[in-house]
């Protein structure tokens, strides 16, 4: 099932459940905190496990692709030359970073603004996101890195198949062009 749709379904169910729980009760708050903390911890541990697996595998096959121009920053297309190992580590690290930002967000919402509802809503999604991520599919479930799991991964788009315009280019011609473009060493003023 499409992860976006299942996220939506979970959110609706959780919203219904949240209405039935007394969010003022200290005991309930404690349970919700524990559930959220456990969920984040499990997600974090999954990513760390994957990280260790990637480092142990040490796949040094080179990977070349051209990232599309970022529309807001004014930067042009960029060639990325990396290895499978570094690419995987980058993906996992950005996932871990997003866990931290989520944690900071929730910390602000719950501890400072005193909302418990969002904490309850976020009890499942960290683990779900972790298990659905491409790196976990490849390294934990042992799926072959081809098809949808071929590196570089396609960015999941909000509108299904219509967001294909900003995918990374891997064809020989664009890589060749970007390789000889002479875009390095430009010093910002």
């Amino acid at each position: 099932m499409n992860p976006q749709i299942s996220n939506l379904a979970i959110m609706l169910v959780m919203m219904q459940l949240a209405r039935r729980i007394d969010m003022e009760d200290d005991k309930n708050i404690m349970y919700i905190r524990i559930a959220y903390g456990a969920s984040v911890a499990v997600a974090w541990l999954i990513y760390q496990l994957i990280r260790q697996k990637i480092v142990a595998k040490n796949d040094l096959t080179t990977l070349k692709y051209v990232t599309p121009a970022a529309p807001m920053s004014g930067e042009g297309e960029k060639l990325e030359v990396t290895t499978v190992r570094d690419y995987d580590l980058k993906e996992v690290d950005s996932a871990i970073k997003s866990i931290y930002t989520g944690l900071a967000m929730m910390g602000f919402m719950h501890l400072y603004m005193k909302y418990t509802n969002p904490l309850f809503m976020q009890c499942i999604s960290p683990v779900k996101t972790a298990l659905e991520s491409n790196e976990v599919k490849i390294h934990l479930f042992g799926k072959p890195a081809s098809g949808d799991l071929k590196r570089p991964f396609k960015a999941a788009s909000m509108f299904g198949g219509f967001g294909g315009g900003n995918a990374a280019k891997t064809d020989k011609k664009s890589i060749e062009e970007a390789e000889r473009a002479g875009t390095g060493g430009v010093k910002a003023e």
Partner: protein
Amino acid sequence: MSAFLQPIIKGMDKVTALNAKYLALTFEEQKNMTFVERLRFYNWTFEIFALAMLVLVFVAYKYGVIVNENRAKKLFGSLNSFLQDDLQFARVGFSKGDGSKVPYIEEGQKTWYTTFATGRSAIASLSVRVHMFSRSNPVAMLMESLVNLMFPSSMTVKDVSEYCEVVIKPNGTFVSSETAKPNNDAKDVVNKFKFITSIVNKSSMNELRRENYYLSLTHTSESDKLPVEYVFMSELNQLNGFTLHYADAGFNELLKRAGNFLQSICFTDLPANKPLTDKLWDATQKPRAVIRTKIPVSEQDLSLLKELVSAVVQIFDNVTREIVQKSPQAFINSDILKKSNQLRTQELARIVKAMKQVEREMAQEKKQEAEKEKRRQLKATGEQEKFDQKMKEKRERRLRNKQKVRM
């Protein structure tokens, strides 16, 4: 906004409250106490805390300076004697005006270190540049790494990484012994070093390509001839074999041992910073080899660095000897030079084109600015209305003329 300032205000109130007892004293009461009594009565907690912070900052500063300095001393101490004794450079380090010797120079609050050697067959100069973290300022270091974590593209690698860079420039002169006569065509020999070929560690391919203009003109290719940790980056695939051809048999094994230390070995003549004008292009072309490594910390790193430097010096020795002696199987043949020359002409054309474009845009901007200024002046003197009136009459006249023709 006040919600965010609340904790600060609360904290400040707490600090003031530490001395509530003292502040509550009236002037008379204070006057009646002796100096020592007043000192005793005052609560010094905050002051002690502040002093402790100052001491902490000072200790961190001292520690950082000592660590950086020790590393530099160790590195340059052993490297300089290696350059002088083993590689036989005539001059190593710097000398001051009064004749005293300085083994290395430090800049930027002990974050940049440099040494220099010259006076040798085949090599014009060798310089070593080392960048270290500013360990003496841990707060700035922390901020830098935080900014880098949040906005990775806003910082250049130079600010956030430690590295050691050895630049070796050839001089095209080959002498086999101390009494041998040097060749006269040194300039022509140096001119043959016009190509880009490099061996780059896979862990730093991307940063080095971003940072160095010359590497961003090359193809990246894997090869069985290299250890798995490295790739070739050369402007022509023919050039990939250059380094291995001139290095000795143990070079591959050395690369393998240096897998976690060496970042790249590049032979290039183009600059690291992209030249933006044709004048800069001409001025910045310097044939050289660049060895880039991590900071050597252990004895093992140091010996690896020495081996790498001596391998590159040896490559220059071999190439220069071959060219000077006009050996028929020289690796750098006219075909390669022709192709690399072609690439340089193309690049130069590209730069000139971009430069012209910028110039055109600037001229246009200036013209518009001048026109605006002119109109402003006309307006100020009241001439604008007259001018407008004239133009209006002209338009009307034209319109009338047109109508006449139609009729």
